[in-house]
């Protein structure tokens, strides 16, 4: 039963009743309702609980500013937490629940905090849970459980979200009177216009207004403007769309609600779309927020903003109460009393803090016989789950009287919504006449008009909108010719009543009380975070006198509503404490988003397989056919191992390792970065980049090379081949490819532009097949190869060009396994075919494909580092014992840094091998190395960390675990036993040994 639905009126469709559930109760509303208006229609007064004191809370506002009616929508996969009931459109079957209150909103155990309130003052958590430090983990569990708004869904979201980019001449934010006037004028002048409004229906305050404009009732004037805009080809209308962020260079983010109902009923239906708009000119017409008044128990359900009361009565035809009192310090709230009166609500009186009362509108109240108490205030409200009475008194607190009522409409004046102006970089300043922050001149090409500019009268809002639309259109480019323009663009719209005779607002930041605020019932400033007047006063007493400090100490403005209602009152109360004017306090920073944006909308289409591009080698299909396991390396997918007959990782890697060491293995190494370096100064350039003597490298030979950052730390490594006097081919790590090319380009372009060198990425043009093991040469020869594969003709660290099975290739005799090995570089078009031929030719030798896991083990057995695994950006070549690579004959990048005192310390972490004393434990990679005996680690906190394990495997060929690591002064500690401690806390004694575990003399790479 919609007991509080008015019999007629409103912009709802009474022919379309909608069933919904709130906190388990079955209720009914109408199409056109928000969840908030439907709850009011059903007399639901308590919609949530306060954050800290768990007091019952009711609906206060009617839009984005709502701090109390924060609800969780839906359940399971489509659940959406922390939505404002005032912005959720009703749909059939909607299910919503309050996010606060356990076990329920009507009976909440946490409400005991309300009586224990004195202990929960500002800074309570900081002060109480600081010590002892080790108990924090215990406290944290309970504090976390009591924090937060709603529950994040744990299932994948079935809805579809989308992104769209758009450009326009004029972006209009807000479709109230000023925004509509701006959009219509700019569109008539020929500008490409986008107009967005967060509400599902354009019109803003006019939808609940009884004014008339250009001879039409306000809602009819809105309808006419919307028709004009819809019929203009150059206009995009975005209702239900919140402009949540204003970024640099007039770039705006808009969240559009495309379907109000969650859940993918129709596959492909888009739930929300995130617009990224680049506008030449922006008109901001976001309106203003009405301020609450601060008095005792001002958070009780039934206390509402006066403008919200008008909106509920006029737009949604619901009655927020039966006996109402209005409390104000300005003229605008008088309209709420008239709207209530017309709706048949008993308006007991208007309480106006101003001794002189209102201007012209006071006449209308006299006609309606609504009593007005000027120079009076409301000092307290009674009733817990709904107000039952308020206390009225004179400003001097005399003549106190209790008035029974179930609705209090309040207005403490208006705060322009300066958020987007401020996000765009514009500053704001305090206006002493209007008692609010107004935009200072803008930094980006934008104009604030209407209420967000501190303009209150409808006539001026319409005029400002019209003029801004015109100026924005004219400034965004060439528009209509003058004569045509004058025929098309008419004058600004005019309201019938321009309400010139208004009395000024008198500030009332805090209702005076008979005692100090601390000794009176709570007076709330920020409803969502339960920040009270006494919290602010306490913070000021304790020295948190900057508004930014106050915010963090009291949580004022820290809620999901970002203090849209409470911030200004809070600043003014701080100013009062400090005896300063409000203008001296300043404001906190406005940051996007204006209202919360879902993760789904942020991600858009970039989820699942579209999250990040995947790079696959030319041979990838074959790996897939073999059911290889893959691992991502950068964006590449590389086979990690090739399990057969249900092998696990360990067994597969052992089999692959043994096959390679004993006969022949084959690996797709195509993901290695490859850079072609050529030009008359190629050699000179590479001398700077690499640490070794490049000029001494003869044509036809390869060299292992490392490059350092200017800080002397290892940056990347790879093999350099000299193809000609002026032509080199260098490889990089898979993950480092793009970075190394960019690094080289930067030096070439910025430091040595005179060098004649060209750098070309060849990573995808060439595929690389590594064939390793004693039989590798025989397999290649079997394919038909015109290169002499004999040891003498084709020595280690050389390359030969030739034909392999009739296809041109470059063969390099390099080895990352310590075995005789060849890398075949081949045009990627022929790579798969050649791979298949190698597999066929290798069958008699038991050729075995291996992946990155086996590659890691094979190289670790030889003590070869992997940059990025065994190094971390703080490791020098000296730490790795690579001094032999550092040329003494030339300068190179990073050389000077190696002589810095920090790089010469003897206790630097140095690269070593590690051998488990028990001969069987594979220590965890990342385990910390600690000096000491098992069970007898020196009792010092923190325990000194000597180093860490960087690589650790079981070596099949050695039949024991091997590990590599970095440890302080490691090069001088060979033979010493230290402890490796992983995340399980087990101490594993390990001996420091040489990092070369297998074939220390390096004989196997010459096996024929």
């Amino acid at each position: 039963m919609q007991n509080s639905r008015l019999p007629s009126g409103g912009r709802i469709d009474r022919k379309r009743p909608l069933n919904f559930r709130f906190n388990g109760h079955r209720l009914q509303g109408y199409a056109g309702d928000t969840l908030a208006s439907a709850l009011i229609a059903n007399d639901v007064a308590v919609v949530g609980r306060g954050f800290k004191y768990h007091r019952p809370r009711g609906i206060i506002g009617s839009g984005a500013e709502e701090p109390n009616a924060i609800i969780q929508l839906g359940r399971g996969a489509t659940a959406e937490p922390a939505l404002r009931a005032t912005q959720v459109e009703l749909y059939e079957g909607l299910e919503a629940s309050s996010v606060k209150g356990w076990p329920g909103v009507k009976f909440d155990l946490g409400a005991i905090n309300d009586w224990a309130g004195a202990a929960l003052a500002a800074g309570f958590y900081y002060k109480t849970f600081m010590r002892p430090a080790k108990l924090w983990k215990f406290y944290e569990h309970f504090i976390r459980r009591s924090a937060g708004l709603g529950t994040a869904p744990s299932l994948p979201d079935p809805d579809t979200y989308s992104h769209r980019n758009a450009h326009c001449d004029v972006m209009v934010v807000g479709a109230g009177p000023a925004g509509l006037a701006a959009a219509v004028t700019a569109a008539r002048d020929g500008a490409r216009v986008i107009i967005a409004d967060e509400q599902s229906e354009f019109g803003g305050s006019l939808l609940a207004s009884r004014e008339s404009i250009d001879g039409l009732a306000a809602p009819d004037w809105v309808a006419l403007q919307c028709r004009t805009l819809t019929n203009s080809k150059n206009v995009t209308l975005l209702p239900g769309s919140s402009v949540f962020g204003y970024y640099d260079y007039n770039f705006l983010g808009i969240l559009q609600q495309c379907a109000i109902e969650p859940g993918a009923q129709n596959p492909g239906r888009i739930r929300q779309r995130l617009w990224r708009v680049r506008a030449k000119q922006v008109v901001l017409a976001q309106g203003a927020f009405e301020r609450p008044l601060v008095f005792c128990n001002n958070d009780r359900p039934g206390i509402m903003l006066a403008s919200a009361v008008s909106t509920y009565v006029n737009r949604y035809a619901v009655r927020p109460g039966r006996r109402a009192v209005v409390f104000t310090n300005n003229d605008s709230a008088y309209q709420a009393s008239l709207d209530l009166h017309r709706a048949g609500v008993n308006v007991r009186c208007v309480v106006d803090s101003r001794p002189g009362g209102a201007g012209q509108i006071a006449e209308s109240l006299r006609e309606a016989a609504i009593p007005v108490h000027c120079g009076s205030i409301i000092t307290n409200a009674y009733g817990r789950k709904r107000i039952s009475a308020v206390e009225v008194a004179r400003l001097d607190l005399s003549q106190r009287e209790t008035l029974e009522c179930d609705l209090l409409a309040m207005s403490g004046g208006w705060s322009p919504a300066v958020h987007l102006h401020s996000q765009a970089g514009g500053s704001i300043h305090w206006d002493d006449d209007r008692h609010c922050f107004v935009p200072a001149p803008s930094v980006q090409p934008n104009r604030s008009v209407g209420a967000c500019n501190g303009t209150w009268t409808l006539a001026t809002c319409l005029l400002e909108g019209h003029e801004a639309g015109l100026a924005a259109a004219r400034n965004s480019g060439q528009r209509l010719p003058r004569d045509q323009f004058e025929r098309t663009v008419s004058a600004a719209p005019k309201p019938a009543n321009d309400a010139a005779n208004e009395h000024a607002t008198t500030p009332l930041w805090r209702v005076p009380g008979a005692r100090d605020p601390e000794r009176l019932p709570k007076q709330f400033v920020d409803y969502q975070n339960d920040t009270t007047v006494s919290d602010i006063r306490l913070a000021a007493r304790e020295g948190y006198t900057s508004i930014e400090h106050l915010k963090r100490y009291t949580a004022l403005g820290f809620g999901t509503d970002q203090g849209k209602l409470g911030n200004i009152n809070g600043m003014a109360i701080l100013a009062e404490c400090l005896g300063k004017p409000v203008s001296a306090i300043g404001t906190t920073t406005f940051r996007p988003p204006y209202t919360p944006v879902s993760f789904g909308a942020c991600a858009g289409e970039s989820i699942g397989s579209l999250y990040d591009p995947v790079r696959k080698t030319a041979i990838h299909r074959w790996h897939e056919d073999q059911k290889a396991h893959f691992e991502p390396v950068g964006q590449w997918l590389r086979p990690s191992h090739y399990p057969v007959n249900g092998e696990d990782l360990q067994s597969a890697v052992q089999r692959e390792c043994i096959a390679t060491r004993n006969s022949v293995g084959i690996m797709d190494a195509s993901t290695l970065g490859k850079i072609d370096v050529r030009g008359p100064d190629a050699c000179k350039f590479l001398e700077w980049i690499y640490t070794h003597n490049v000029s001494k490298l003869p044509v036809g030979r390869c060299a292992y090379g490392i490059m350092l950052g200017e800080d002397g730390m290892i940056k990347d490594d790879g093999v350099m081949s000299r193809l000609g006097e002026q032509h080199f081919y260098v490889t990089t790590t898979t993950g480092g490819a793009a970075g190394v090319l960019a690094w080289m380009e930067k030096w070439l372009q910025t430091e040595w532009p005179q060098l004649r060198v060209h750098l070309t990425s060849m990573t995808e043009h060439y595929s690389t097949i590594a064939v390793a093991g004693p039989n590798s040469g025989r397999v290649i020869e079997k394919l038909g190869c015109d290169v002499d594969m004999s040891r003498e003709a084709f020595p280690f660290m050389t390359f030969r060009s030739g034909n392999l099975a009739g296809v041109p290739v470059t063969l390099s005799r390099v080895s990352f396994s310590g075995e005789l090995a060849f890398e075949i570089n081949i045009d990627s078009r022929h790579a798969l075919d050649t791979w298949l031929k190698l597999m066929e030719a290798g069958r008699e030798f038991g050729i075995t494909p291996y992946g990155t896991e086996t590659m890691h083990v094979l190289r670790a057995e030889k003590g070869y580092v992997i940059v990025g695994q065994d190094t971390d950006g703080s490791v020098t070549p000296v730490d790795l014992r690579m001094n032999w690579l550092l040329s003494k004959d030339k300068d190179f990048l990073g050389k000077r840094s190696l002589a810095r005192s920090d790089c010469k310390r003897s206790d630097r972490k140095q690269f070593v091998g590690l051998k488990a004393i028990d001969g069987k434990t594979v220590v965890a990679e990342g385990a910390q190395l600690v000096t000491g005996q098992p069970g007898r680690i020196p009792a010092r906190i923190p325990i000194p960390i000597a180093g860490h394990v960087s690589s650790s495997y079981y070596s099949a060929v050695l039949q024991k675990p091997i590990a590599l690591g970095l440890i302080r002064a490691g090069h001088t500690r060979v033979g010493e036993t230290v402890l490796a401690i992983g995340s399980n806390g087990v101490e594993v004694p390990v001996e420091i040994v040489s990092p070369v575990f297998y074939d220390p003399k390096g004989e196997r790479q010459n096996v024929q």
Partner: protein
Amino acid sequence: MLIIDCPYCGERDETEFSYGGEAGIARPQHPESLTDAEWADYLFMRSNPRGPHRELWNHAQGCRRWFVAVRDTVTYRFSETAALQAGASGDAE
């Protein structure tokens, strides 16, 4: 999101570019003759001004050219972009 005027390609979105730090940091001619403090000054110390800042940008997702830009560190507005002149570290002087 910034719009950056690449001297070679024209105006493009910020996402196409990467930042290269302060411009005009020339690599010393003879690093070996510098004290540790002098070398550290080249290596680590940057001016970090409030206001116009000469810096290097790379059109990484476009022409891959490095260029010099003057950007205001308060407003993020670019007042100028220019191709590198022959000279050290993007110092157009």
